[in-house]
């Protein structure tokens, strides 16, 4: 049968690679013969061969003595894929489509194995295939494929490089944990693989960032879906531990990625993962020196970094949908009708379950609220840059009043999520942190909330406190803002009733 023939060819390939180094002439000849004899000259042939090679690799893994080298066939297959990508001339099909086809077949094989075997599925050979593929690619692609003698081929490969990683990223997106629970731990190991993650982070022009955010979102969504307040399955706790280490490594190596993508990442991060949230929000651009936030003499207005707006990779305006016009129009010319459109437009059509700290459901569109708050902050910083600081550091400015009206017209739930969204912008010293610090301070001390004042103050204190009583790291902006509330002249917040009502909190605040 065709399957048997393909398996024979692949077996010969595996044997060959064990006998000669991979730059031996016989390796090139073997591949040329494969193509000339028509093994891979049609789409059908490619699909059948990929199928056969993968199934052989997986069964060879399963049948090998676990103490021996169980990945010989798998590694040989990875090497073959890379050789096929660099040695062939692509006339009928682009290199990218060729690679996509192979990956699609691999995806189908995994789907069948995972679907059939259920708990009996073993992710390791598939992990090894992708891992070795990434290693082999790294080897040939070093210094912009300088090892390629043929200049035409070399420039084609340089162009293809982004597609290579993009296709792997798409493969990972489609095999995410929610869809392939039996592949979860291999998946997490792959998205953080040393030959994948740093590459994606540093592709020119941030070309890998969008897909990376997507993959991290897939991870966070999985964690969010299966983290319940009273019961977190052990396996999910292990997932969390892995995610924590990965984010810490990213914060160390590429804090700019977290800085520019905090909005999207936080949209999918469960509220209960407070420390992880803080890790993302505490990321500081490399080489930035940050003054001690606990310095009692610190005045945020004097901090030099506060002049500059942080770079934003994903513009939240895309998430405003129907409210984009009302919000932008309000910012230009505020009106009560626009205000009403916004404050009523933030609700979901129905309740949704949530695992918040202190609440189980949510009826507001938190993602929309995050988008509105962040967008207003971005616009405010732009306004300051175009005109003056007094245009926005002004409780009569439309930027301020938009947010204030959300609090004023909203119920406790709305207020809570708006304040949370504001607190998410209190990060390292920058123009957003600076402005939102101003907003929150003024919200706290404003006299025109009427009977809502105590609740608003309580929500603000709660929001800031929950971010700084956790183990480190703490966001610079959150610490500074809270310190500003404590330092303010007038009645100490320890005299506030809602503080006195909870002795533990009173103690913490007195200590602070």
């Amino acid at each position, binding site marked *: 049968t065709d399957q048997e023939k393909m398996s024979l060819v692949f077996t010969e390939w595996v044997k060959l690679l064990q006998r000669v180094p991979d730059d031996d002439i016989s390796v090139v000849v073997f591949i040329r013969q494969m193509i000339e004899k028509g093994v891979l000259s049609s789409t059908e042939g490619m699909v059948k061969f990929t199928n056969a090679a993968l199934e052989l690799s997986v069964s060879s893994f399963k049948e090998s003595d676990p103490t021996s080298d169980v990945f010989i066939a798998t590694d040989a297959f990875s090497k073959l894929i890379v050789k096929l990508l660099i040695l062939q001339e692509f006339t009928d099909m682009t290199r990218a489509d060729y690679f996509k086809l192979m990956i699609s077949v691999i995806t189908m094989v995994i789907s069948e194995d995972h679907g059939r075997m259920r708990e009996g599925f073993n992710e390791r050979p598939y992990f090894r295939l992708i891992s070795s593929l990434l290693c082999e690619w790294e080897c040939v692609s*070093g210094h912009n494929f300088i090892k390629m003698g043929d200049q035409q081929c070399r420039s084609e490969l340089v162009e293809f490089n982004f597609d290579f990683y993009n296709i792997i990223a798409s493969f990972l997106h489609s095999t995410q944990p929610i869809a392939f629970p039996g592949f979860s731990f291999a998946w997490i190991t792959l998205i953080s693989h*040393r030959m994948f*993650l740093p590459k994606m982070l540093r592709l020119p022009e941030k070309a890998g960032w969008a897909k990376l955010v997507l993959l991290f979102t897939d991870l966070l969504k999985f964690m969010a879906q299966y983290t319940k307040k009273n019961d977190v399955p052990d396996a999910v706790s292990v997932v969390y531990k*892995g995610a924590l280490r990965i984010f*810490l490594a990213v914060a160390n190596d590429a804090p700019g990625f977290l800085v520019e993508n905090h909005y999207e990442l936080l949209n999918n991060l469960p509220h209960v993962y407070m*420390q992880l949230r803080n890790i993302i929000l505490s990321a500081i651009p490399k080489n930035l020196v940050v003054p001690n936030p606990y310095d009692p003499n610190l005045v945020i207005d004097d901090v030099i970094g506060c002049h500059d707006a942080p770079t934003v990779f994903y513009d939240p305006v895309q998430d405003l949908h129907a409210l984009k016009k009302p919000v932008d129009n309000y910012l230009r010319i505020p009106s009560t009708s626009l205000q009403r459109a916004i404050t009523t437009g933030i609700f979901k059509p129905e309740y949704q379950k949530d695992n918040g700290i202190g609440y189980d459901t949510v009826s507001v569109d938190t993602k929309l609220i995050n988008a509105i708050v962040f967008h207003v902050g971005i616009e405010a910083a732009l306004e300051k840059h175009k005109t003056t600081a007094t245009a926005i550091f002004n409780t009569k400015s439309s930027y301020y009043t938009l947010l204030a009206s959300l609090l004023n017209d909203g119920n406790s739930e709305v207020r809570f999520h708006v304040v949370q969204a504001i607190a998410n912008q209190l990060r390292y010293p920058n123009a957003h942190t600076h402005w939102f610090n101003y907003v929150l301070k003024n919200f706290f001390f404003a006299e025109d909330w009427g009977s809502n004042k105590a609740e608003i103050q309580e929500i603000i204190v709660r929001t800031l406190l929950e971010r700084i*009583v956790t*183990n480190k790291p703490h966001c610079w902006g959150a610490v500074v803002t809270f310190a500003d509330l404590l330092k303010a002249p007038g009645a100490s917040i320890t005299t506030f009733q809602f503080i006195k009502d909870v002795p533990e909190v009173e103690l913490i605040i007195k200590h602070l």
Partner: protein
Amino acid sequence: LGIDLTPVLHSLGIPSNQQGRHRVLETFQSPWVETSRSEVEPRFFVPE
């Protein structure tokens, strides 16, 4: 409340002070300490 991250950072090879800070993702062994018992070969380049 989270956990004290010092041992976690240590396991990643990230020093707690700012000295000697270098990239760790390029030699990242595994997301979990338990599966990180051997070092992995990082990317490298050997001229012809």
